[in-house]
């Protein structure tokens, strides 16, 4: 983890922190849990096997990388930033890692370290440019997205990566990818979500991110080291992209093609926004993001399992995004009015 952890040792600070703590679970998260439960029950009733292990397990494997990157993206969006380069970063991490697996037959820990290290580097690049360049995050990350894609395409070298060995099967959809029936990739995601939830809620470093997103100028005047915090959020996202790239390789075929990562930045941002994180910054939760990712994948799988036309999934996800952003904006307006 690239985020540092500043203790809240002084009793006075702790008392203050306790007073401003939000409830552990927000209303939007409860609503999401409700929607997911209702959908799962309905899908269980109207499809032959939605609630079977053979269906839920692959669903969780698909959720894992999106939720994982979503954790970093939640940190970033809480600071009122955004990272649209994660699709390109996934592509670059995945192709470099996959190619190394094929060419050098890397061992599992080394391959993971390579992917996370590269992702961290890409995240640091974004972070430095955004925190110290003072250019809006969407401009910087739109630029780096194209650069990452260019580099990835160079590594692809006009070909797919073929014959990827099964090194990452431990993160895959198959038998090797689970313990007691639970996919490893999802277990890792849950652990990281839990740590991130605790960090955002119980450490001064985490609370500072909210302060920066609420009002960066005020945060600076209050003595928060705004730029290092922002840098750390992008670096964290980069490292998580690196780990998620391993999950993408594991869940893919033995061939990696150039479509890897394409459009995933939008899937991640959708999960974060549906999860109740305010796109204007200052408010958000990683549990919401995990639930958002589960909801999106439930809808996508559900539409196929019901035998409905595939494009309906886009319609439903679009409606969810608009409802989530709409309620957020209404809430902000109500707060300003009061």
């Amino acid at each position, binding site marked *: 983890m690239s985020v540092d952890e500043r203790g809240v040792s002084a009793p006075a600070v702790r008392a203050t922190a306790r007073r401003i703590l939000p409830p552990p679970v927000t209303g939007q998260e409860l609503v999401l849990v409700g929607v997911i439960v209702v959908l799962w029950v309905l899908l269980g009733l109207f499809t*032959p096997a939605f609630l079977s292990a053979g269906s839920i397990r692959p669903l969780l494997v698909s959720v894992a990388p999106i939720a994982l990157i979503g954790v970093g993206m939640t940190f970033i969006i809480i600071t009122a930033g955004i990272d649209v380069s994660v699709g390109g970063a996934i592509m670059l991490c995945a192709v470099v890692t996959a190619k190394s697996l094929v060419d050098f037959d890397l061992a599992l820990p080394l391959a993971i370290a390579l992917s996370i290290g590269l992702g961290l580097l890409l995240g640091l690049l974004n972070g430095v440019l955004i925190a110290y360049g003072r250019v809006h995050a969407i401009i910087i990350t*739109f630029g780096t997205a194209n650069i990452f894609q260019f580099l990835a395409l160079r590594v692809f070298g006009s070909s*797919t990566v073929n014959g990827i060995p099964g090194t990452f099967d431990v993160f895959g959809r198959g*038998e090797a990818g689970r313990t007691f029936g639970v996919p490893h990739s999802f277990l890792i995601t849950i652990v990281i979500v839990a740590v991130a939830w605790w960090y955002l809620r119980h450490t001064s470093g985490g609370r500072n991110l909210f302060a920066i997103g609420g009002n960066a100028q005020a945060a600076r005047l209050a003595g928060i080291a705004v730029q290092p915090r922002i840098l750390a959020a992008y670096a964290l996202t980069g490292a998580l992209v690196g780990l998620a790239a391993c999950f993408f390789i594991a869940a893919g075929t033995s061939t990696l093609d150039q*479509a*890897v990562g394409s459009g995933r930045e939008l899937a991640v941002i959708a999960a974060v926004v549906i999860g109740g994180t305010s796109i204007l910054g200052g408010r958000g939760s990683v549990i919401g993001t995990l639930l958002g990712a589960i909801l999106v994948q439930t809808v996508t799988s559900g539409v196929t399992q019901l035998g409905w036309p595939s494009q309906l999934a886009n319609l439903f996800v679009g409606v969810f995004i608009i409802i989530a952003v709409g309620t957020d904006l209404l809430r902000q307006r109500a707060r300003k009015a009061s």
Partner: protein
Amino acid sequence: MIPARKALAAGAIALVAAMTIAGCTSRNDDSGGGGGSTSGSDEPIRVAFVPKLQGIPYFEAMNSGGQQAADDLGIEWLYQGPTTADAAAQADIVRSFIQQDVDALIVAPNDPDSMAPLLQEAADKGIQVATSDTDAPDSVRQVFVNQASVQGIGEALTDSLMTAMGGSGKYAIVSCGETAANLNAWIDVQKEYTASEYPDAEIVDIVYAGEDQAAATSMATDLMNANPDLTGLVGECTSSAPGVAQAVKDAGKTGSVFTVGLGTPMSMAPYLEDGSSSASILWDVQNLGYLTAWAGLQLAEGNEFEATNDVSADLPAVEYDADTQVLLLGPPLEITKDNVAEFDY
């Protein structure tokens, strides 16, 4: 304040995008500037091919076939495509080749309708125009180099799957782009041919995963869950063919659910070998590139196509249909575990 910042962001994005496109175009102009319109008799004939996108194995294999033909036939083979399957980016490249005044211009259009006026523009300048891989039927193209007949592909896919499934059972199709004309035409043939030739078999669902392997794999998994008695899956394009096989393998259903698809040999090899894929239907992509370059040369030299053409040792009898102006590469190729090692793309 925030809307203003957003507007600025949008403006900057548009600017960056415009600069990117402008950058590409001017680079093309530079590279072709030397040739100009003064191609004398000593200069080789220049045949340009614009694929749907470059950098994917399929079109790179076509490119290597075209290069081979250029070496054999003594022509110059120009190959450039957009980095995504985008009609507008492709149009820019076509325009740049028109400006370079190539002798023959062959396109695999992303959007046949919007390509038609550009082909007209090229023809007006005296450039010979053709299509390959994907046709633009309502255009002035003089010939379409067709990789395989729609009927041939649809029937070969169905026959291969039915051989594996024992001629009966339920199967589903994982297609890619919902508006891809060639995929939809093959699917229509599969529906009709299955109904007429294999009355005990049934297509239960057709889903669209885009050009996305991961989506294809998820959808194939969902289809198996939705239809517990499913025994067959078809991956209709090069990204969904390995995707459906991977789904069957992950679900531990190799041998009870059979898959076929339109996959490139190297991406299908592991699945053909472990049995999660029974066969891949394709055509010899390098030969398609070779035929494309050869057809460009014939057009540039003003030669008429014969009913049967001797193109090369690999392509001794290529048929030409004068009514539809279509050159047909030949019957589709069935790739199985026995011959998959012969291909290097």
